[in-house]
Each structure stands twice: as structure tokens, then as C-alpha cells.
């Protein structure tokens, strides 16, 4: 039984690592910071969730040890990773990092310009 | 008892400083005057005891741990000196009361003078050489203060500093010499040292000690080539010159050499060095005295010359100590005796001459020979005194100088007969030098008296008509003049009571071998020499205008004075040039020195101590990711060097920090990993916070050579650390103490060993570390809060 669960957790971890590699590929290949950020936050979050859950389950199954810390960690990463992605992207936009040429038009720009006129 | 004699002037000096504001200034002078008078009387009381070749001794303990005791000894040699010090001192103080002007600070003057007196008494009475040295330096200091008494004058200051530097250098070398003597004999006591020295001639330190000692004595006694400070010291008030440079300070060197004669005397080098230096000084002093236009400068050179004469005599006389000297011992004892005799004579006539010059200066307002003349009419008594002094100095009959000059010639003539040192070859040369010097002496003596007092009076309108000095100023030189004449007629009185006991101290059976002094020896070589001196002297004086201008052809920048000056200024320039070069205020240069030093010393040590065992063996294996991480770190670190923006650099630094944290994870250090992570994050944030106020960095523009240089130093530094690290890693001789800490659960109740070490075994570190952090916090706070107020003076708030 416990070996089954252990194997399950190990597979989770492996999946996580594959996700990580995929997101890394995204980081490597995507054209601008906004898309890269997408790759980094979305899939990495998934990767870490998978691997942490794997570890959590492994310890549970193997030693009967319920790690509050791991659980906290999962929650924490789950909460913060998107926010981090959000603020980086915003910072990038505000500091006028160019969009990739293939992105089409900047939909936010007219709106912001209008607002700054307003002020 | 002797200690109190010595300290008496010191106490009075202190008293004078304390009460100076409450007492009339003349009265201070009289208080000061009473000191040497009382001391003279006290010392004179001992003449009968001492003349029967007994010595008076007192001992106080000072630093027994190092064998330094205040032992004082009054014997025949010291007695002459203490009487001179107190006697001349009394006269000088008396004179000074009338000499000093109302603008001068009496309190300071007498304080210094009495301090000086203490110092001199200490020098001649100490038996312990360290105590002797203490007083010796004390004489330098107090004379320094006296010379610079008019310190608002630049010349006074320079003269004082010059004399201090030269005498102090001499003093320091002498100290080294003394300490060598201590190393040789294991005693600080003069008597012990003098007794043991003759057996120690084979000791390696014997000649160094002698040389250093001689340097000390020569500097103090203004012997060639150290004489240069003396003319400059003439900036002192005249009473000071009269005291220091006729009777006391310069005689300290003489005293020292005389004192050590029983120890070193038998040595051939001692003999030749002192004799030759003395002769050269004698000649050089008199030769230069003739060209001087300043009366005091003339006296200064004449003093140098006379000191050379005494020195020569001491040198010749030292041969008498050599046991191999045999029959001729009497001859050399004679020289020693003459040295002491001339010492006394010189004090009398030179003291009076200084005072006379002082009177001239005081009454006329100048000492420049070119502006003086015909003063006989205005200052008749002074003229009389000047004549006595000068004639005594010139060695004319009916003055004491004649006697000692004759005896000097006898002594010099005897060098040729020297049985052991091989003086026969050069003896005649020495006689010639001595004789020439005597001719010059005669000439400058004549200049001194006749150029000043005879001839046409040169009285400009700006000068008041000079008047004869007050009685108080005439009495002291008068007394000395009377002595100068008196000693001619009754020399043996002096000889019996003072000189013979002194010679007895220097040479065994000295008193018995000492001659009786006669004014008339019959028609011998000496007399003819003297007659020659007088004849040639008179001719030379009359033809002075013809030959004196030739002096100007002697290149003026070849003197030792120039050497001294250029040494000092060269030292300052060198200091400035060198220091400004390497202490350039540039931090990178400083790091360059530091790391170069480290690398050089490390590699030198390797080279010297032999190879250390460096291999790449490691106890633990390496996994792939550890290797990868190491590569990542190395790459990140190197990338920092090429980072174009500071943010990149900081992020890379963050990568380094995080990687180290991972290493800590790999290497089983969870606590460290945690701390490192948090610290790294906080540090990065700190960097970012501060970056707001700092400029973006620019790419460094360094020349290729500098880049290569820096790179080499950097690589060498890293290499050094690596190599030693590898070697240490291989060194497994000792087990670490840390297995003890594995009992942490039993001992400290903690399962986390690291935490147990931090909180318990080595909690002290942790506590202080908290304090360090706290201080840093305060530091940041003050750095930001405390700023210079705009417009405030830079160092207002000290």
C-alpha cells in the first residue's frame, strides 16, 4: 500500500519536474517579458505544487509524518506566485519594457493615456 | 645627601614657577642666585675630604628591578666639575640679574637655569650610568629651553632645535653604548664597569660601545664634525652662553671621556680617535674663529677650539692607563693633569669673555665687529676685563692660559716619544697642527679685544653713546678675571686641592705622578714654540686685512652645517615624496598593497618552509548537481565582473547567495541554509533600497596594463587561498573537538546541535553578535540623521 502511494508521490514529483522544464522552455523561447512571465508563473506554480504535494504524500506514506510546514508552503506558494507574476509584469509595463512585435496592439495604452490626461 | 644637593636647584626652580607671579622679578633672581652660592659652599666643604682621595657616596633606590639606583659619588673628578657648575653658575646668575631686560620672563629664565644646574650636577655625580644618561638628556632639554629663551626669534628656535637634535642623537647613541656596557658587565654602576672594562677588550661589543660613547661625548662637547650646533646656540641670552658654553654643558662630554678613561684608556683606538678628533677640532675651531664678524660666533668657535684642546690632552693622557706604558706613564699623567687644568682655566677666561661680550652687546646694541671699535673710551673696565680674558686665551704670560698652553705643547710634543702606539711617524704633524691652531688662537684673541676696543669709534646716530655697565654686570667677569691672573701665580693651590685628587681618580698613582706647575721651565722647545706663536700671531694680526679675505674662497656649502641642513630638508623632502606617492588616498591602491603583501609573504613562506602537501583528494564524493551548482556559482561570480548594470550584479550576487544556501542544504546544514536565504534576501533588499540614492555604475575604464595587473593579483589571491585550503584539507593529524557537541541533548537539552552550540556552548559569541548587529543599527541611524549643518565651520564642534 505505502509503496503504491510512494510511487504515486514520486510520479507527482516527476510530473512537477517535467512542468518545470516546460516552463523553463517557455522562459527560454518566448519573445518578451510578458509572455515569459506567463510561462514562469503559471507552469512553475503548477510544477511546485505537484512536487510539494508529492513530497508531502511521500512523507505521509513513508513515515506517517504530516508536515504542516509543507502544507503551509503549498498554500503560500499558491497564494503568492500569481501575485508576484502580476506585479512583475506591471512593473515591466510601467518601466516601458517593449512588447514583442508579434503581440499585436497594446490594449492598455490608450486607457492609461486617457487617465493621465485626466489628472 | 648628594641627592639633595642635586635636587635643591630643581626644587627651587619649581618654587620659582609657583610663586613667580607674586614676587618682584629681581627678587626671583636673588633667590636663584642663592642656590649655587649655597651649593658651592656645601661642596667646597668637602674639599679636604676629597683631596685625601676619599669619595663620598649616597645611594637611593629607584628601579631596583632593573638595577637602576640613584647612586651618587663625589670624588676628585666630580668635585672640579661641581665647583665649576656652582661657582660659574653663581656668577652667571648674578650677571643675568642685571643683564636681562624688563621684557624677559625672569621666572622662566631662572627655572630653566636651575633645571640645567640640577641636570649638570646629576651628570657629574651619578654613578649609575642610566641615571647619568637621564641627567645627560636633561641637560640637553634644559639647554634647549635656554637657547630658545627668546623663542619669538626664528634663529633662536632653529638654534635650539639644531642643538637639541644633535645632542639628542648623540645622547641616544650614547644610551646604546651604555646598554652595551651593561650587556658586557651586567652592571649599571660606573665603578663596576670601569673596573671590569679593561678585561673585556675582546668582547664583540667593546669597540661598538666605545664608538657610541665617544659619539655621545663628541656631540655634547661640540667636537668636529658635530660642532655645528654650538655657533647657532649663540642665539641664547649671553648669560646662558657664558654658563652653558664655557663652563658646563660642553664640558659634560669632557667629563664623560675623562670618566671613562680608566676603562677604555689603555686602548689604542681610544687614544688616536680622541687625540685626532681633538686636534682637528682645535684647529678647525680656531681657524674659523678668525673669520667671524659676530663676537659671540667668534667666542663660539674659540670654545670649540679650546674644547678640542682639552680633548686632545685627554686623548694623549689616556695612554697612561695602558699597563704596557711603563716608564712613560708620568708623561701621560701629565697630559691628563693638563687637561683638567686647562678645563678650569678655560672656564675662567671664557666665562669672563662671554660676559664681556654680553656687556658690549647690552651697552652698545650690537656684537658685529664691523660696527664696533674704540669702545675703550666708553667702557674702560670692560676693556680691562676683555684684555685679561683674551690674553689668557691667547696663552700670554701672567695669565693662567699661558701655563696650560705650555703644558699642552709639552704633551703634544710627547706623542712623538710614544713607546707603544707608533706615534713617532706622525708626531711632528700633530705638533704642527697644534702649533698652527695656537697661532690662530692668538690672532682671534687679539681680534676680540683690539677690534672691539681700539681704533676709531664707529658710533652711528642711531646708537646712543655707550655707557659703562653697571657694577653688577662687571663684578662676575671681574671675579673670573682675578681668578685668571691668580691661577697664574698660585697654580699649585688649585693643583693640590683639586687637580691631583682628580688625576688620582683617572690614573693609579696619579696624584703622585702629577707635576708641579711652573711658569718658567727654562729655554726648552715649548718656550720657543710659544715665542713663535706670539711673533707669528702679531704679524698675522697686523696683516689681517691682507689674508682674511681669502676665507671667502673656501666654498661655503661644503661645511657640515650645510650637510646638516640638507640632511634635514632632504629627509623632509624624501618623506613627502615617498609618502605622498604611496599614501595616495586611493582605496584600490591600498587594496593592492594589502593583497600583494599577503600573496608575497605567503609565497615566500612556502618557498622557505618547503613544500606543503597539496592534492585534490577529497573525503566525500561529488554528485552531478553539486558539480553543476559549483559551475553555476563560478559562472555567476565571473559574470558579475562583466555586468553592465548594478541591478544585474546584485541579482547575480543573489544567485551566489542562494546557491550557497543550496550548498548548505547539500552539505547538511539546514540552519545555515535558512539563515543564508533570509539574509541574502534582506541584503538584496538593502542593496535595492540604497541603490535609489546611488548612481548607476559606469563601465570601468582601466588601461590594459592595470586590468592585467589587477587580474593577476586577483588570480594569485584566489590561488593562494585555494592551495592552502587544499593543503589544510589534506592535513588530518588532529580530530576536531566537535564530537563533544553531539552530547548536546544530555548537556544542553537541545537536539539541534548547531542551535545548542549557538545558544549554550558558545552563547557568548551569539550574545556579542546580537550586540554587533545592534551597533550596526545605531550606526545606520546616526549616519543618516547626523549631518553637517550647512555653512557651519568645518571643525567647529570639537
Amino acid at each position: 500500500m505505502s509503496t503504491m502511494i510512494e510511487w504515486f508521490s514520486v510520479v507527482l514529483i516527476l510530473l512537477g519536474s517535467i512542468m518545470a522544464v516546460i516552463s523553463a522552455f517557455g522562459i527560454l523561447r518566448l519573445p518578451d517579458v510578458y509572455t515569459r512571465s506567463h510561462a514562469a508563473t503559471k507552469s512553475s506554480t503548477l510544477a511546485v505544487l505537484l512536487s510539494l504535494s508529492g513530497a508531502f504524500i511521500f512523507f505521509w506514506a513513508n513515515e506517517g509524518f504530516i508536515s504542516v510546514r509543507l502544507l503551509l508552503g503549498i498554500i503560500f506558494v499558491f497564494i503568492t506566485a500569481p501575485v508576484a507574476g502580476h506585479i512583475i509584469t506591471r512593473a515591466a509595463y510601467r518601466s516601458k519594457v517593449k512588447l514583442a512585435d508579434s503581440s499585436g496592439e497594446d490594449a492598455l495604452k490608450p486607457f492609461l493615456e486617457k487617465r493621465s490626461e485626466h489628472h | 645627601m648628594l641627592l639633595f644637593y642635586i635636587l635643591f636647584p630643581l626644587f627651587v626652580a619649581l618654587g620659582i614657577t609657583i610663586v613667580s607671579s607674586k614676587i618682584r622679578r629681581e627678587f626671583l633672581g636673588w633667590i636663584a642666585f642663592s642656590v649655587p652660592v649655597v651649593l658651592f659652599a656645601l661642596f667646597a666643604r668637602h674639599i679636604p675630604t676629597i683631596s685625601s682621595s676619599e669619595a663620598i657616596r649616597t645611594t637611593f633606590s629607584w628601579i631596583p628591578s632593573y638595577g637602576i639606583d640613584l647612586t651618587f659619588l663625589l670624588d676628585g673628578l666630580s668635585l672640579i666639575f661641581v665647583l665649576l657648575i656652582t661657582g660659574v653658575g653663581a656668577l652667571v646668575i648674578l650677571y643675568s640679574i642685571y643683564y636681562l631686560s624688563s621684557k624677559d620672563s625672569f621666572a622662566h629664565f631662572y627655572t630653566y637655569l636651575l633645571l640645567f644646574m640640577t641636570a649638570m650636577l646629576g651628570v657629574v655625580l651619578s654613578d649609575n650610568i642610566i641615571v647619568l644618561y637621564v641627567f645627560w638628556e636633561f641637560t640637553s632639554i634644559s639647554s634647549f629651553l635656554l637657547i630658545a629663551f627668546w623663542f619669538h626669534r626664528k634663529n633662536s628656535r632653529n638654534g635650539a632645535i639644531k642643538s637639541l637634535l644633535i645632542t639628542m642623537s648623540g645622547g641616544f647613541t650614547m644610551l646604546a653604548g651604555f646598554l652595551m656596557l651593561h650587556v658586557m658587565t651586567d652592571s649599571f654602576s660606573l665603578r663596576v664597569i670601569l673596573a671590569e672594562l679593561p678585561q673585556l677588550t675582546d668582547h664583540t661589543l667593546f669597540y661598538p660601545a666605545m664608538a657610541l660613547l665617544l659619539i655621545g661625548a663628541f656631540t655634547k662637547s661640540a667636537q668636529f664634525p658635530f660642532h655645528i650646533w654650538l655657533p647657532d646656540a649663540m642665539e641664547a641670552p649671553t648669560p646662558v652662553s657664558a654658563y652653558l658654553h664655557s663652563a658646563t654643558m660642553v664640558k659634560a662630554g669632557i667629563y664623560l671621556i675623562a670618566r671613562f678613561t680608566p676603562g677604555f684608556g689603555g686602548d689604542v683606538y681610544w687614544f688616536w680617535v680622541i687625540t685626532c678628533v681633538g686636534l682637528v677640532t682645535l684647529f678647525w675651531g680656531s681657524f674659523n674663529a678668525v673669520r667671524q664678524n659676530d663676537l659671540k660666533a667668534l667666542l663660539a668657535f674659540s670654545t670649540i677650539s679650546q674644547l678640542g684642546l682639552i680633548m686632545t690632552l685627554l686623548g694623549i693622557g689616556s695612554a697612561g692607563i695602558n699597563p704596557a706604558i711603563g716608564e712613560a706613564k708620568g708623561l701621560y699623567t701629565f697630559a691628563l693633569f693638563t687637561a683638567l687644568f686647562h678645563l678650569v682655566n678655560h672656564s675662567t677666561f671664557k666665562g669672563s669673555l662671554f660676559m664681556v661680550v654680553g656687556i658690549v652687546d647690552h651697552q652698545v646694541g650690537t656684537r658685529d665687529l664691523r660696527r664696533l671699535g674704540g669702545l675703550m673710551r666708553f667702557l674702560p673696565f670692560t676693556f680691562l676685563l676683555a684684555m685679561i680674558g683674551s690674553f689668557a686665551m691667547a696663552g700670554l704670560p701672567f695669565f693662567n692660559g699661558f701655563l696650560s698652553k705650555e703644558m699642552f705643547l709639552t704633551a703634544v710634543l710627547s706623542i712623538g716619544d710614544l713607546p707603544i702606539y707608533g706615534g713617532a711617524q706622525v708626531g711632528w704633524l700633530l705638533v704642527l697642527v697644534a702649533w698652527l691652531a695656537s697661532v690662530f688662537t692668538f690672532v682671534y684673541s687679539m681680534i676680540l679685544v683690539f677690534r672691539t676696543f681700539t681704533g676709531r669709534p664707529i658710533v652711528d646716530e642711531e646708537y646712543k653713546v655707550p655707557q659703562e655697565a653697571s657694577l653688577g654686570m662687571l663684578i662676575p667677569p671681574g671675579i673670573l678675571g682675578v681668578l685668571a691672573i691668580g691661577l697664574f701665580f698660585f697654580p699649585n693651590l688649585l693643583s693640590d686641592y683639586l687637580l691631583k685628587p682628580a688625576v688620582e681618580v683617572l690614573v693609579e698613582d696619579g696624584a703622585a705622578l702629577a707635576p708641579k706647575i711652573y711658569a718658567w721651565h727654562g729655554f726648552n722647545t715649548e718656550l720657543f714654540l710659544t715665542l713663535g706663536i706670539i711673533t707669528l700671531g702679531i704679524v698675522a694680526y697686523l696683516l689681517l686685512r691682507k689674508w682674511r679675505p681669502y676665507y671667502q674662497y673656501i666654498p661655503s656649502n661644503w661645511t657640515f652645517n650645510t650637510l646638516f641642513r640638507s640632511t634635514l630638508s632632504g629627509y623632509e623632502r624624501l618623506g613627502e615624496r615617498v609618502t605622498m606617492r604611496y599614501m595616495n588616498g586611493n582605496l584600490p591602491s591600498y587594496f593592492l598593497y594589502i593583497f600583494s603583501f599577503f600573496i608575497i609573504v605567503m609565497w615566500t613562506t612556502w618557498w622557505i618552509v618547503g613544500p606543503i602537501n597539496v592534492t585534490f583528494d577529497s573525503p566525500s564524493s561529488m554528485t552531478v548537481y553539486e558539480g553543476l551548482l559549483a559551475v553555476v556559482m563560478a559562472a555567476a561570480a565571473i559574470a558579475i565582473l562583466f555586468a553592465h548594470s548594478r541591478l544585474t550584479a546584485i541579482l547575480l550576487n543573489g544567485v551566489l547567495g542562494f546557491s550557497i544556501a543550496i550548498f548548505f542544504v547539500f552539505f547538511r546544514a539546514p540552519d545555515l541554509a535558512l539563515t543564508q536565504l533570509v539574509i541574502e534576501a534582506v541584503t538584496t533588499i538593502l542593496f535595492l533600497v540604497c541603490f535609489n540614492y546611488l548612481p548607476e555604475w559606469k563601465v570601468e575604464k582601466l588601461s590594459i596594463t592595470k586590468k592585467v595587473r589587477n587580474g593577476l593579483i586577483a588570480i594569485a589571491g584566489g590561488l593562494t587561498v585555494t592551495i592552502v585550503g587544499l593543503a589544510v584539507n589534506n592535513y588530518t593529524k588532529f580530530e576536531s573537538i566537535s564530537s563533544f557537541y553531539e552530547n548536546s541533548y544530555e548537556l544542553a537539552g537541545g537536539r539541534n546541535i548547531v542551535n545548542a552550540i549557538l545558544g549554550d556552548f558558545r552563547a557568548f559569541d551569539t550574545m556579542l553578535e546580537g550586540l554587533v548587529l545592534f551597533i550596526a543599527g545605531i550606526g545606520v541611524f546616526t549616519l543618516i540623521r547626523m549631518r553637517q549643518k550647512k555653512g557651519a565651520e568645518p571643525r567647529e564642534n570639537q
Partner: protein
Amino acid sequence: MSNSLVFFMVIPIVVGIILIFFRESPKLQSWASIGVVTALFGLGLYLLQEVRTQGILRLDFGGWEPPFGILFVADTFSLLLILTTLLVTIICLLYVALSPRDRMINYYFYPLVLFLNAGIIGSYLTGDIFNLFVCFEVMLLSSYVLITLGGNRIQLREAMKYVTINIVSSWFFLVGIAFLYGSVGTLNMAHIAQRVAESGSDPLLTVVSIVFLTVFSLKAGLLLYVWLPGSYSSTPTVTSALFGALLTKVGVYALFRVFTLIFNEGTLLPTFIAIMAGLTLIGGSLGAVAYTDIRKIAAYNVVIAVGFMLAGLSIGNTLAIEGTIFYILHDMFAKALLFLLIGTMIFLTNKVHIHEMSGLLKNYPTLGWTFFIVVLSLAGIPPFSGFMGKLLVIEGALENGSYVLLALAIASSLAVLYSLLRIFSQCFWGETIISAEEQRPLPVMRLLPLVVLAGITLALGLGVEVVAPYVQAAASLLDPSTYINAVLGGT
């Protein structure tokens, strides 16, 4: 076991921290700190007697037997240094308390001085090499803050250099500790000494010792004194005085401790130290005449003194060590006095270059004579305190045949004399240029600390005999077994 040893460190720390809360009451701060330091001085005297009767005292923190815990070890040498440190601190604090109030008082000056003292004393007492590092850091951090305290922009600039160089030296220290721990596996200095001796002076350990030589040379200003003149000459008077008197001595102490206790074999290290000391003497002597800024001149005099002390160490026989101890004690007082005097001169004239001042002796006679005393004292002229040390070191050099060092030592005394006499003759002698109206008043109270220091240097010179037994006891440094037995020989 004597808990009182730790008071030297704990009490200044506690009082310092409490004073942080009383930022607005400078009077309280000053008298409280003076009181504390004085009390510690009394304690020090008591402990000195204790050491004399009972031998080396030690305190194992937490009761952990050496070599596992940290411990304080007090022998005569360290206690003498502590007493001197405390006395100098008292006087410097008095100087501040009696001067007009300064803004820096409000910025934790007193607590920082107390922390500085704690760090210095900790370094003197600790018997653990890593704890020595930590104590150094306490001292250094306090000095970093003190050096910037005063609001002068030059201070900031020089502090930047001072701090970075010291960071590098701390780095060397850690490297040294790492190597040492890696090779002998222990941190307790006595234990290290034992193991190093066991190893039979392995070449590797000699190489490791060079790292320590670098570290302590940096701290002491031996050859690597590049940081010293700038930083010591930019700070306010009292800070310079404290630094000049105390800071380099800690490095000197560490050199003494490490190279008499641990790395005491072979001739290589003494040779290195001798060469470095010689170069330091030369460099200091050259620097002392290179500047017209009186603060710089004083700073280079510190360098010369360091060279002299280390010359004593490199000679290394009993006489030289005793002489050096005398000299260290003397130098702490004399340097404090020198810097205080120079600061007072600058305060009075608002000038720093020698040719801008003249005739101060007429205006301020006591100041002038005190300066004269310190000149003589520093040049090693009897009967002031510098003499005995110089005498013994020279004699030690003679016994050892170190003639070059001997000559350099003597020449450097002359350089000291000349460089300071230049100040005396230019600034104190000469025509008085300050008129009576312009003359800044110099209250007696402000002179008091200076006169007291001058008195101490005279008293130390005349009363050598009082100190001599302690100094002779302190020279037992040369016999490391006493120390090792006291630490490792059980409680």
C-alpha cells in the same frame, strides 16, 4: 572561576544600552559612563592583585570546560592593558564631559565608547580565537560608527576606506580561523597552542600563521597601516584620542598573544615581523615629516610606535618583551594625550597646519608645556614614561644582536622628536599672532584631563618600580606553558 571577569564586558554593554534610552540627557550619560568605567578600573586593580596571588584567572562561560566552550582568561599582560585602556577612556570621557557640548553626544557617543571598550577588553580577555574575532567585530563596529560621528564630510570619506579595509582584514581573520580549524580542529587558543606544538611546527601551520600575521598587521598597523593616517586624522578630537591610544594596541596585543602562545617556534615569523617592524618604522618616520597637518603628523607617530612595539616582539627575549609592555602602556597614555592636545590646538585656532599657527605658548602656557612633555615622553626621553620601554627594548636588541632594528628604533625616536618638535617650535613658539581679544578662552576644566595625562606619563616614568613587578609578570608571555596549564589544566 571568577565571574567578575565578565563584568569588564557585560557592564559597559548593559550600561551602554540603557543609556540609549536616555538620549536627551547628556549629563546623565557622561557621568554614568565615567562612573562605570571608573568602577571597572577599580575592579581591574583588584583582579590584578588576584592574579598576582593566584595566578592566571579564568572564567568558562556556561561552565563548559575548555576547549569546548568560550572562556575568558586574565593574565597580568591582559589586565595591564585593560587597566590602561580604562584609564585612558576615563580621561577621554572627562575631556568630553568638561568640554562644551557637542552634537555628537546626542548621537550615542557615550554608548558607543562603552561598546568600543567592551570590544577592546573582550579581545584582551578572550581565550578563544573565534571569540577574538567576534570581540574584534564589536570593537570595529563601534569604531566604524564613532569614526563617522561628527558630521564632517571628510570623516565619511575616510570612514569608507577604514571600513572596507577592515572588512577585508576581518575576512582574512575568518580565512585564518578556517584554516586553523581545518588543520588543528579546535578554537581554544591554549588548545590550539598545544596541538600546534604537538604538530612539531608543520610547514602548513607556518603558512597558516602568515594569514594571522596579515590580519593582525592590518589591525595593528604593522606595515599595512595605509588605513591609519587618514582615518585617525579626520575624526573629532576625542575619537582620535581613543583610536590613537587604544585601537592599534588591540592588534598589537593579538600579535603578541598569537605569536608568543601559538606560533612561537622557528625563526621565520620573528624575521618577518622584524622586517615589517623595520619598514613600519621607516614609513612612519618618513610620513611624520611629510605633512604640515598636525593631525597627520600625530597619526604617523602612531605608526612609528607600532613599529617599535613589534620590533620588541620580533626581538622576543625577556628584556625586549618587558620593554615593549612598558612601551605599550606608555604609548596608550601618551598617544591619548597627543591627540587631545592636537585637538585642543585645532579647537583654539581653528587651523590645522603648522605654519598657520604661532606663539601659542604665550596664550596658553599650560597647553604648551603639556605638549612639550608629551614630545619628550614620546621620544623616549627620561624621566617620562617612554624611556623605560625604549631602554629595555634596546637592551633586548643588543642581547639578541638585532643591530639593524636597534638602529632603526633609535633613528625613529629621533624622527618622533623632530616631527613633534616641529609642531612645538612652529605653533607654540614664535611670534604670538592671536591678539588678546581674539583669543579663545581655554577653561581650566578643559585642561584638566590633559594635565592629568601628562602627570601620568611623568608618574609612570618615575614610578617604574611600582609597575615593574607586574610587567615582569606579564612577560611570562614567553612561557606559553603557564597559560596553557591555566586553561587546560582543569578548573
